[in-house]
């Protein structure tokens, strides 16, 4: 039996955690629950629902900051920013459809907790780079805060970084301040047609190392896409420069305008190319960009049916493998080799995720250190027990 507790403000949130601490009841902490199918399954009957603590607290476009409550839906934040031609520059993906749900769900804080990022990760960073500060409750039932609302802040430890990507296992947040940026006027995409993986990654790395300020570099089978964003005259000039740079690659080139570009990059961001077969296991591999093709080749040698595409100039491989009980985790992680990187099992059946390490296994020293960090926030293991394995 699952029961739910749904606080309406920071005070009730603190009381709820205090209650859980006193009762020794672990909490399944969620906003809209859009990413519940991601991570290790939790054996946890008590839900702490944050959707009641919702709403924009303050939005100052000229300060490039928005402050909002933890349960605020992402769609609300994005709509608000769009009114002032601003955006979340880390381009948070909507993983709903990939995880078998409706699109358009999820909270901004949920995206922060997963440290999500889209194609602009390369030039603008991930959620971690945009979280300026937060307030919340630790596992001792204490209300605390870190960071602030200003752009530059080195006062005390940067706890925002360690909270981002913690999948709700360290503390429960009630409010966050997030950096926002102007949305680009124009977007253009230069498509290189027919390149193999190795040639595509070479082209993407050359583009990223050029002065043309490429803000996205993805390679799908047969198509390699380079994105340019900014004011119209700049995009036009850089597109011309990029075309000239790419002549040597010898591929046929096509261009996408602003609207087509937006649609294309939204599909890349949301991993739409791998949505088609819902029973396949989906992996996200982060690696040095130039290593991407070799890693994928090692996997494909064993699993020729694998479907994959690259983002982040080759440094992100989205990989779908035919169903298997162990999600081929040994093969996938073995393929990383000495170059470093990590593989996360993003989509798999609950039974698979229960037995396979969803997150990349770490060295014994790091496992011990991470456990001590966890304990420093949540000594009784109240929050999302076992979610990160």
């Amino acid at each position: 039996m699952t029961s739910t507790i749904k606080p309406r403000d920071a005070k009730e949130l603190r009381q709820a955690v205090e209650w859980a601490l006193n009762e020794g009841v672990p909490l399944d902490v969620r906003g809209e629950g859009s990413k519940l199918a991601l991570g290790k399954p939790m054996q946890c009957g008590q839900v702490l629902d944050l959707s009641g603590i919702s709403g924009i607290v303050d939005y100052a476009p000229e300060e490039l900051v928005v402050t909002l409550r933890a349960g605020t839906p992402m769609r609300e934040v994005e709509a608000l920013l769009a009114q002032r031609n601003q955006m979340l520059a880390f381009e948070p993906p909507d993983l709903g459809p990939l995880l078998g749900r409706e699109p358009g769900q999820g909270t901004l804080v949920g995206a922060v907790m997963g440290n999500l990022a889209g194609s602009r990760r390369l030039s603008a960073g991930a959620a971690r780079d945009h979280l300026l500060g937060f307030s919340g409750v630790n596992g001792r039932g204490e209300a605390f805060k870190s960071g602030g609302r200003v752009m530059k802040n080195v006062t005390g430890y940067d706890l925002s970084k360690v909270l981002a990507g913690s999948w709700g296992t360290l503390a429960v947040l009630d409010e966050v301040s997030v950096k926002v940026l102007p949305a680009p006027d124009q977007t253009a995409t230069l498509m290189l047609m027919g390149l193999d993986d190795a040639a595509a990654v070479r082209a993407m790395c050359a583009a990223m190392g050029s002065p043309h300020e490429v803000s996205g570099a993805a390679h799908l089978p047969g198509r390699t896409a380079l994105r340019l964003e900014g004011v119209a005259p700049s995009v036009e000039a850089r597109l011309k420069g990029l075309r000239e740079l790419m002549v040597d690659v010898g591929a046929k080139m096509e261009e996408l305008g602003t609207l087509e570009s937006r649609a294309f990059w939204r599909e890349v961001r949301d991993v739409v190319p791998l949505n088609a077969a819902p029973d396949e296991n989906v992996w996200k591999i982060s690696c040095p960009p130039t290593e991407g093709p070799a890693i994928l080749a090692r996997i494909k040698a064993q699993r020729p049916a694998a479907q994959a595409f690259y983002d982040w100039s080759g440094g992100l491989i989205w990989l779908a493998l035919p169903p298997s009980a162990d999600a081929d985790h040994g093969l996938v992680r073995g393929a990383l080799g000495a170059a470093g990187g990590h593989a996360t099992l993003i989509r798999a059946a609950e039974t698979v995720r229960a037995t396979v390490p969803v997150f990349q296994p770490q060295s014994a020293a790091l496992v011990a250190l991470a456990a001590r960090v966890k304990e420093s926030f949540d000594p009784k293991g109240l929050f999302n027990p076992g979610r990160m394995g």
Partner: protein
Amino acid sequence: MEMPPLDSAILARRSEIVAALRAIVPGEGVIDDLDGMRPFECDALSAYRQMPLVVVLPETVAQVAAILRYCQDNKVKVVPRGGGTSLSGGSMPVGDAILLAMGKFNRVLEIDYANRCARVQPGVTNLGVTKAVEHEGFYYAPDPSSQIACSIGGNVAENSGGVHCLKYGLTTNNLLGIEMVLMNGEVVRLGGKHLDSEGYDLLGLMTGSEGLLGVVTEVTVRLLRKPSTARAVLLGFPTEAGAADCVAAVIASGIIPGGMEMMDKDATKCAEAYVGAGYPLDAEGLLIVELDGPPVEVDHLVERVAEIARGRGATTVRVSHDEQERVLFWAGRKAAFPAVGQISPDYMCLDGSVPRGKLVEVLAEMRVLSKQYGLRVVNVFHAGDGNLHPLILFDANDPDELKRCEELGADILRLCVRVGGVLTGEHGVGIEKRDLMGVQFTEIDLDQQMRVKCAFDPDHLLNPGKVFPKLRRCAELGRLVVTQNNIPFPDIPRF
């Protein structure tokens, strides 16, 4: 500035500790004579000085690990030091602590242009990274003004910024990985040439931890391609409010300049007298706005910025026409600190950060405080990101002036916090702002931070006396009192 009392038991064991360090680092790597240690007695917060117990300069990661393990086993404190350029006393020695100087870790290990990163040892200077890659058109973005001397390891410890942070981020946004040694001697690697962390983002936590969590022995930084053009616009306003309005209007219009600096009239006068940059001496508020990128974009944005400035009543609008002129516009700003040094025996540089919208209010209140304390304050700051650097002019030889200067500084930082800002934007807490932490944080906030410290350094041996105003033992911090009154909180919706 009060430091924790010296541990006489450790002082008594000095020769034994020196011998143990000599067994780890042979030859000249251990310095224990007064003359040899003198160069290490302070960092760039030079009003405070202290001789360390002994200085050790390891050359290998194994030596760093052995030193820390020895210190952990023997409960000896350690102060890590990079370039020694901290403005907050972050690397100031402690009398009963070993000073672990990382200066011999000064090699660039690998440059990987395809993956746009460089792997360097922590003692390489910030500018050294850019120097190593600029012939290929690349650079390392964070550019603190001490970049000739400050080390990358120190940049990680302090999460250093610079004038280009608004567009390119701080150190934390430009790191890919580190190798570090924990206090127990364990060597761990965080990140690498890939993006994002596989577990908790401990790399992000380490960045800006002021040498209290671990000792960095290798750093992988992100390289950026140099923008093809940069032009600067010099804008003079008859009021400070006009200049501040212009800053807000530029950002609200969707422009993120590469740099956006502001100087008040006194700072402008000092800088102009010092370098002759051609600054308008009638301006109450002077802005330098730098735009970088492809030439067409820069030209386009320069026009828009000039237009916004005129609309806000700018009396001077000058655009740099060539690289020489751009460098000249910056020369005054970059020399502002030494220029102020010409008109006062000493100055103290503060580092508060405030919401941009509060700049005018903060400047006005600062004037009032300056009068109250009878000390002049000159203002130079990163207007684009609200990071203030008020310079308080004083004479360190006059103990009363030093005391008043410290008090005025504290009042200015309290003011920053009161308007929604923070104590330090890029210089760090160190010893300088340590005792003000309670202005910004509650005891619970600080306890949580100290518990994180305990996860890395359970005996508080690394960089003691810094950041936290009052140290609590980890055992005490870890105690958890669970009350047994299980109030069901009937008001909270449950289902």
